[in-house]
Every structure is written in structure tokens, then in C-alpha cells.
């Protein structure tokens, strides 16, 4: 039971409520675009070993 995704244990009403909650949170409290950009940029710098070394130093 603990290995089952919780989504599969939800009834349709619960799923509907969670969908509403998700869309509300996405509108009211979204991840700022600049945070996403910085996280993406971080991954690209890490993927470049020379840049990664510069990050560490």
C-alpha cells in the first residue's frame, strides 16, 4: 500500500479538488520565472565540467 502512488488511491472528487488546488496554486503562488531560469542555467553550467570547476572555485 505504501508503494502505491497516492493518486491511484484517490476518488474522483478528491482528484477534482486537487486539480482545483493545483491550478489555484499555479496562479497565486507560482515558481517565479527567474527561479526557473536560474535552475535551468545551473544545470547547464554543471553539465559543462569547466564551468562546474569555476563554480566550485
Amino acid at each position, binding site marked *: 500500500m*505504501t508503494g502505491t502512488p497516492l493518486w*491511484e488511491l484517490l476518488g474522483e472528487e478528491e482528484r*477534482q479538488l486537487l486539480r482545483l488546488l493545483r491550478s489555484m496554486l499555479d496562479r497565486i*503562488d507560482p515558481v*517565479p520565472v527567474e527561479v526557473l531560469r536560474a535552475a535551468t542555467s*545551473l544545470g547547464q553550467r554543471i553539465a559543462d565540467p569547466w564551468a562546474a570547476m569555476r563554480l566550485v572555485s
Partner: protein
Amino acid sequence: MYENSPSEGGRVGSLVLAAIEGDRGAAGLLVARYSPTLWAVARAHRLSPADAADVVQNTWLAFHEKAHTIRDREAVAGWLATTARRESLRLLAGRRREIPVEELREPEPNWDGPEPRAVLADRDRTLWHAFGQLPERCQQVLRLLAHSPELTAEQVGTAVGLAPGSIAKTRLRCLRVLRRKAALAGLFEECAS
């Protein structure tokens, strides 16, 4: 997203592997897919937007440093959520900069979609108010579930610091309370249509 849960066709594990091997596109897809979950974890710990941004960044940094150690790559959402929780707790312990839920950003009038903005704005405010009345633990569990429904009880429990066995009951109780509060505010009948 929900329709593709839980494993999104096995793509998640492949994306993680590709990211480990230096595929920037895969890393970017993971960032786009899971940053909302990390943000949700941080905000559920009542961190300010600036601190939540630090949590997201630090969690992705940890991912890039330790992704090769993740045993079950399909379960990366749980790993990320747990790491974000640790980062959130570390920040809280260091700074003690907590803000009440009421201070979180209010809805802004820029909704896109077929429904009238005023209707969406009213619905969001009502649901936000009802959500804000829930106990903090409920908010943590529901934020996680809303953003990453593929998580198991064990993963959610680890991410919010609850025993996996209590997650199912907590989830049910929290959703019932939220539904009742929303219905009392006249929201749910409108949304059920």
C-alpha cells in the same frame, strides 16, 4: 500531468539518466517538471519567496552533485521533495524567517483561459482562504500531492516528516476539511459543474 501519473510512461528515469550523462535538455525538462514541487515544499514550510528560491536552487545543486547516487530514478520526485524539505528546515533553523500564510502573494488579475477572470479570481481567493485555514501539516501534504501526485505515501511521509502509515489518513482528512471549508464558502457547488 495527472493523466500521465505515476511514472509518466517511464520517461522520468530516462530523463534522470540523461541528465546525469550531461544532457542539458533532459536536465531542463526535469527542472521544468519538478521545480513547482520544490517550490511547494519550501512555501509549505512558510518560507519567503526569496528563501524558497534558495531552496529550489540548492535542491537542484544537490541533484546535480548526487543524482548518480539515486537508486530508483523513477522515484526522483520523492528524492527531490525530501531534499527540498531538508533545505527548508536548514534555512529555517539558520534564519528563523517565517511568514504567515496570510502574507503570501494575493491573486493577480492576469488569468488566461476560457473562464471569466472575475470568476477565477473569486474561486481562487475562496479556495486560497479555505486552504490557508488548514493546519500546516495538511497544507504541506496537499501542496505536495497537488504538484506531484505520483508520490507514494512513503515518499510524502519522508518529505513532510510523517510516518508513511499516517499519510493516507492525513490526506483523506485534509481533503475532507478543505472540501467542507470550500463548500461552506459556496465554492464547491460552483466548481463541481
